[in-house]
């Protein structure tokens, strides 16, 4: 079965919002429709797509590189709560009274966890929603989720709630959400860099997700720099003749002052080569988790719309 809910997490600073947006674009193949959901109230999606702040409504923000449509939604916990109550009870004045009383504030900011229930619930509702023709409204839903350290708890909140509210509609709703999240329709992807902390957090995140019986999808290694220098042989360090030859080569290539700059350039190159070795080790570590590993290049000019589409095309060639 094709996966329909893609939850994208990652350590802060790894670019998970960018990857989520690129994935939503990538999955918007010819005639398909994807929904990109933001849950952390940062308006990161609007900034990426260079559009005004997203309202709490599903709105088309882009055409996928394959000709499909990408919709986006910034979930507002307060509005989601009122939706949720409406869904069960058709609250009119009572909903407004709840808001006046501060009950909505309570539910969305004070009562911890309820906020996460609402956010995951809204995402699962979009996954399950069918149109008048009986077909799914969205072929895929991509969620820009909280960071790796919190994502298991975020997704698992409904099982906790189902335990707290042992009867009633919240109990049933929480169980229904968990069924979607734990189904093979869902995949949690973790974005990482080839740096020590993000790689460690990815390992921890995968272990936590597995322990919570949540389906792990792929690891996305972001901002990979294609190597421009394989290695600097040790021989160049301690042999003045070689350093001299190097300086002569640099001077031949038109470099001014090569006699002075050869040594610092060599040291810089050695540090670079050392980093490549570390990166290779981290890549091997990531590969050991037994889940697909996708790589995205660092875009030299930063992420703009053009860069986003470039990443989307690269992701399109992968198995999701």
């Amino acid at each position: 079965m094709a996966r329909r809910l893609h939850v994208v997490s990652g350590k802060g600073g790894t670019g998970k919002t960018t990857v989520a947006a690129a994935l939503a674009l990538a999955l918007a193949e010819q005639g398909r429709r994807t929904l990109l959901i933001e849950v952390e109230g940062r308006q990161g999606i609007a900034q990426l797509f260079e559009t005004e702040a997203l309202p709490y409504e599903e709105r088309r923000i882009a055409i996928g590189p394959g000709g499909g449509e990408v919709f986006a939604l910034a979930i507002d916990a307060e509005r989601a709560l009122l939706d949720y109550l409406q869904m069960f009870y058709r609250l009119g004045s009572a909903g407004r009274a709840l808001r006046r009383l501060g009950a909505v504030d309570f539910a969305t900011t004070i009562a911890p966890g309820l906020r996460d229930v609402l956010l995951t619930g809204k995402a699962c509702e979009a996954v399950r929603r069918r149109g008048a023709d009986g077909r799914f409204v969205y072929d895929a839903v991509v969620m820009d989720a909280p960071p790796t350290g919190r994502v298991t708890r975020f997704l698992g909140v409904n099982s906790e709630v189902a335990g707290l509210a042992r009867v009633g509609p919240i109990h049933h709703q929480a169980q229904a959400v968990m069924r979607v999240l734990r189904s093979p329709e869902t995949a949690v992807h973790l974005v990482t860099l080839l740096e020590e902390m993000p790689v460690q957090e990815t390992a921890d995140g995968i272990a936590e997700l597995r322990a919570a019986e949540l389906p792990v999808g792929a690891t996305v290694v972001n901002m990979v720099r294609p190597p421009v220098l394989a290695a600097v042989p040790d021989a160049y360090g301690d042999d003045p003749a070689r350093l001299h030859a190097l300086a002569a080569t640099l001077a031949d290539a038109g470099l001014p002052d090569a006699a002075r700059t050869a040594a610092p350039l060599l040291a810089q190159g050695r540090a670079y080569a050392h980093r490549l070795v570390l990166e290779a080790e981290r890549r091997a570590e990531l590969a050991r988790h037994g889940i697909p590993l996708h790589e995205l290049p660092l875009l030299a000019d930063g992420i703009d719309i053009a860069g986003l589409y470039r990443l989307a095309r690269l992701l399109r060639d992968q198995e999701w």
Partner: protein
Amino acid sequence: MDAVPALAVDPLLDDPGTRIIVCCGSGGVGKTTTAAALALRAAERGRRVVVLTIDPARRLAQSMGLTELDNVPRPVPGTATAAGGELFAMMLDMKRTFDEIVEAHADRARAEAILANPFYQSLSAGFAGTQEYMAMEKLGQLAARDAWDLIVVDTPPSRSALDFLDAPQRMGSFLDGRFLRLLMAPAKAGGRAGRKVMSLGVAGLGMVTGTLGKVLGAGLLRDVQTFVAAMDTMFGGFRARADATYRLLQAPGTAFLVVAAPERDALREAAYFVERLAADRMPLAGLVLNRVHGAAVPELSAERALAAAETLDAKKVAPPGMDDHRTGDADPEDGRRTPDPDIPPPDALAAGLLRVHAEGMRQLAREQRMRARFTAVHPEVPVAEVAALPGDVHDLTGLRAVGDLLAG
């Protein structure tokens, strides 16, 4: 950009008037490392320091002697005490902090009832939000003990870096709210809840409690009500402490350091933070910019380096026919030293070094653009730059190196 003032880290750390340093910023910018490095430096310069970390990397925690989450500041082994200072460190244990508040503010029977309540248990175990309250609560406790000259705080990796600032006030407005009284009403007044609620004069309240019961499920509503009623007596204390902590953050002895990396998102978050601190009249000391890259030969531009690399590549392309000879078994460069296959000729190496340099210069330019955007809007904010390190920091030696870089 030259006009940007430098952040004088050592005078800030040495000033006996500096009592609290709060490190804030978005996730993944090195807040925890910055907080630990500042604390170590202050201690080794003679102050009695405690650092409150939220979620340190395992190896860094171990090197600071933080092997268990016990919510008690422990001396950090290996700190140089020649200058008369000391360093303590602790990791925040949310649940235990919450439990301690309950135990401190409620009588024994009531405390037990709260601690056993299922709603309390899941709330205190750390849903989103609790960490922020508890970090501020712990800061208040450490400050109240008055056992240290300086408290350095790392802030939680929240969905927004601003969350911990809002936590005390959010708690305050909730405690003032009618909703709390509404929730407590049934537990306090028993069957008269409906009437009591109606007397508040808000239409539809009976429907609200009924709805809550239906939505939450009767069991959960009862748990919440019992919890809220049991917490009632200690809410006054909570409220007062939350307010006190907020005022502590505004006090002249507090210095906020906004931590960022020279990346778009991190600096955008830093700018928000700077503006928010000003709006809340919180004292900002400056911006710590981590992971700033340098270049070995800054006067050699990326373009020039790439042009030279291409010149070298062009030379490598042998005239037609030459390659055929080279594939023969015999060494074509007869009589010369046979090239070591493991050592690339200077041409290939030189071209590679030039490309590494060009990449570095481009990164430098990118970082400077990001930084210029920030300083254009906030030219008054002093900045301390910390050069990118080859690997992560796992020990006191590494923290000292970061401290040296911070102090410039």
